[in-house]
């Protein structure tokens, strides 16, 4: 049974085609129902508690890998395909989607795009914003609208891919997506270091980021007795070996650190995102015993298992630094008290106008998103 913040919908439906999904969505709009799109359900804790919830439109039956073209470095999949299924297919040609979101496994592609969840590899590749090349989206009035295409380079028309990316399904339900994919690196190595003091750990992180070939992922993890740094290098073998030599860290302890790391999730979970230069001070403002991990090169940190009373100060610090502290997951009462998103963006009025143009009846996820 699908629940969002404890709220049960009157109906759960799992359309088998994009057309059927769009038709059902349009029917809901006409009936004045509130619809929440659901993928793998891994990130349903995002957003404020919904104002209403009549229908869960589950995308997992849209599970077709439409096209994978290794020589073109492109892939097109339906929204309900899991990230693991797509990676397995791409892996046959030694390619991959450079996306390693937390809360894995089980994310669907549609869910990942709607929530903009990501992981450590964004240090090198960015989020899917940078390699999403096409979308098909079901709009509340039942139309299926495409943007972009299936080729890696395209400036034809407005880039509406970016409008839907991270919009938490508030403008439409993503039904299909096309990506630029990447060859697997020729060679990889992961190394780690530990520091007792935060300042020393930060300095080491900076040193890693300033290497001539920086790591493709760099994590700083607050563990009970230490600050742990883990760096992943990828590229040509000689180059990777030289970077590892220059950094002088030790081989990572775990057999598969990155897979274990991507399985992290929590019931109380904040994502702090600030200009990378400001992350150091914001991390410093976290309570002494806080549990967190961070991408120092990106400006993102995840803080888990906090108390409601601790959030306001951290959020204030993040917002003062020009960033945000978003509740990725929290008990509904806490979300109601604190608000999931924090300070309203300065352009909120423009965003509301866009929302109104796409979803005038307020069918999609009412109350959950920023607009």
């Amino acid at each position, binding site marked *: 049974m699908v629940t969002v913040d404890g709220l049960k919908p009157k109906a759960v439906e799992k359309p088998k085609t994009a057309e059927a999904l769009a038709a059902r969505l349009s029917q809901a709009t006409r009936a004045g129902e509130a619809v929440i799109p659901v993928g793998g359900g891994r990130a349903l804790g995002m957003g404020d508690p919904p104002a209403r919830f009549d229908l869960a439109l589950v995308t997992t039956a849209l599970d077709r890998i439409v096209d994978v*073209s290794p*020589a*073109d*470095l492109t892939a097109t999949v339906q929204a309900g395909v899991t990230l693991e299924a797509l990676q397995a297919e791409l892996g046959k040609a030694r390619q991959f989607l450079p996306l390693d979101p937390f809360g894995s496994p089980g994310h669907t592609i549609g869910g990942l795009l709607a929530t903009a969840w990501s992981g450590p590899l964004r240090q090198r590749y*960015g*989020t899917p*914003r*940078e390699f999403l090349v096409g979308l098909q989206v079901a709009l509340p009035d039942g*139309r*299926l*609208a*495409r943007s972009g*295409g*299936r*080729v*890696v*380079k*395209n*400036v*034809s*028309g*407005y*880039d*509406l*891919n970016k*409008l839907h*990316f*991270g*919009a938490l399904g508030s403008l439409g339900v993503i039904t299909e997506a096309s990506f630029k994919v990447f*060859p697997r*690196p020729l060679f990889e190595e992961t190394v780690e270091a530990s520091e007792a003091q935060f300042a020393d750990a930060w300095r080491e992180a900076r040193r890693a980021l300033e290497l*001539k*070939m920086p790591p493709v992922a760099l994590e700083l993890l607050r563990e009970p007795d230490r600050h742990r740094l883990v760096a992943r290098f990828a*590229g*040509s*073998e*000689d*180059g990777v070996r*030289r970077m590892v030599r220059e950094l002088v860290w030790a081989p990572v302890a775990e057999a598969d650190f990155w897979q274990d790391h991507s399985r992290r999730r929590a019931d109380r979970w904040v994502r702090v*995102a*600030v*200009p*990378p*230069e400001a992350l150091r001070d914001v991390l410093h403002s976290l309570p002494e015993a806080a549990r967190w991990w961070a991408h120092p090169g*990106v*400006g993102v940190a995840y803080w888990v298992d906090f108390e409601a009373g601790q959030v306001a100060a951290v959020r204030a610090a993040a917002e003062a630094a*020009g960033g*945000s502290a978003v509740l990725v997951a929290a008990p509904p009462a806490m979300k109601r008290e604190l608000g999931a*998103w*924090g300070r309203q963006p*300065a*352009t909120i009025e*423009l*965003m509301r106008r*866009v*929302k109104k*143009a*796409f979803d005038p009846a307020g069918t999609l996820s009412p109350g959950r998103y*920023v*607009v």
Partner: protein
Amino acid sequence: MGLGPRTLEKLRRAVGRDHVVWDAYDLVIFERDASITGALPDAIVYPANAEEVAAVLEIAAEQQLPVVPRGAGTGLSGGAVTLHGGLALSLARFRRIIEIDPKGRTALVEPGVVNYDLGLEAARHGLFYAPDPSSQKACTIGGNAAENSGGPHCLYYGVTTNHILGMEVVLSDGSVHWVGGEDPDQPGLDLLGVLVGSEGTLAVITKLRVKLLPTPEAVSTLMAAFPSIESASKAVSDVIGHGIVPAALEMMDKVTIGAVEAHYKAGYPTSAGAVLLVEVDGLTESARELTAAIEQILEMDEAFEIRVAEDPAERELLWAGRKGAIGALGHIKPNYYLHDGVVPRTRLPEVLREVGRIGEHYRLPVANVFHAGDGNLHPNILFDLREKGIMKKVEKAGEEMLRACIDAGGTLSGEHGIGLEKNAFMPWIFGPDDLAAMQAVKDVLDPSGRLNPGKIFPPAGQIEPKLIARSGVASEARWW
């Protein structure tokens, strides 16, 4: 039609007496960009800051005047052409690099800053700005953002949209906004992502925060000559198929090679059917290892001559041929016209064959010089404008070449933009529902439709794009 004295006076008060121009001789300069269409503005305004831009837009709103933002006017799809007259809003006075932040690796610039100049300034900090359109010595960062421009090195580094962190923009109602920023994962809709590449139809860009990247330790450039386009295309697919994404992977065909060699002596074998330029960068070891791997692949793919640039001078020369190729084509015919359709790179050989066939059919020489790694074609149709009635043939040939790209699963434009050159073709790739979603965004951000009218969206009731010479001044004989 011309503007009334009262409107001109208001504009002069808004931006300063010297910064409004409406003399017929001056207007002609702004009649064109680098595309094949032209139309006269009623006046040219040169605001100096966002407040002045806002004031101009408010006057335009009052007077119901179209407004067309303009950078250097190097665009190839007519984005800066004042199709319906009105105001050409030049950003030529926005030319400050406000700040380079070497630690955060970003720059804050005004839109009129020339792409190449930003590169020079960044280089003083060991950094570079990645998007490198061929016109980079003239084109501006604001124009690049409006068109989401590409360039040879976008294969590895991505296009302009991947390098813009935030922008200050003015909407047609005169309101000033900052979209995006240096913090990742911003809550709220990604307005920045939609505004980049919106071709001046949604907003006027008045400031940009862009990403800079550290200059790679080593760069390795190699030239490989192939007997045919087919064999070179196969080599492109094989390099990528081996898991190597070079920084740049460019192709030139026989016609281009001949023209380039006559001018630049870049050392491309004139007996070749096609030449590839491949560049890899990164660590010294990586560049060496990748170059060796690429050489091996190219040799297996019938490359009959491979030359690795030994020093920066040789590399410059290899690139001079590529970057100057279009100019060198003047050796063959005085005028050229090109599209920049994209195809899946596996379809390159068949699409290039079709492009050749179309050229032969219309008896127009075609020179291909393009971003092969991205599958981004640039068939240059060569002609002499003084030949009567030739434009019709050129346009028809261009249209058919684009059609061939679409039929191969491709798209209309990889980096030049839709503008008024290809808007009539938009229904080839987007259905009415797709276009309606884009129109919804237009209606929200520019409800008056005053910003750059007649671009991107297919014109109502007009099947073919028309060469519009509103004034009659841009007659064919006065080209270039």
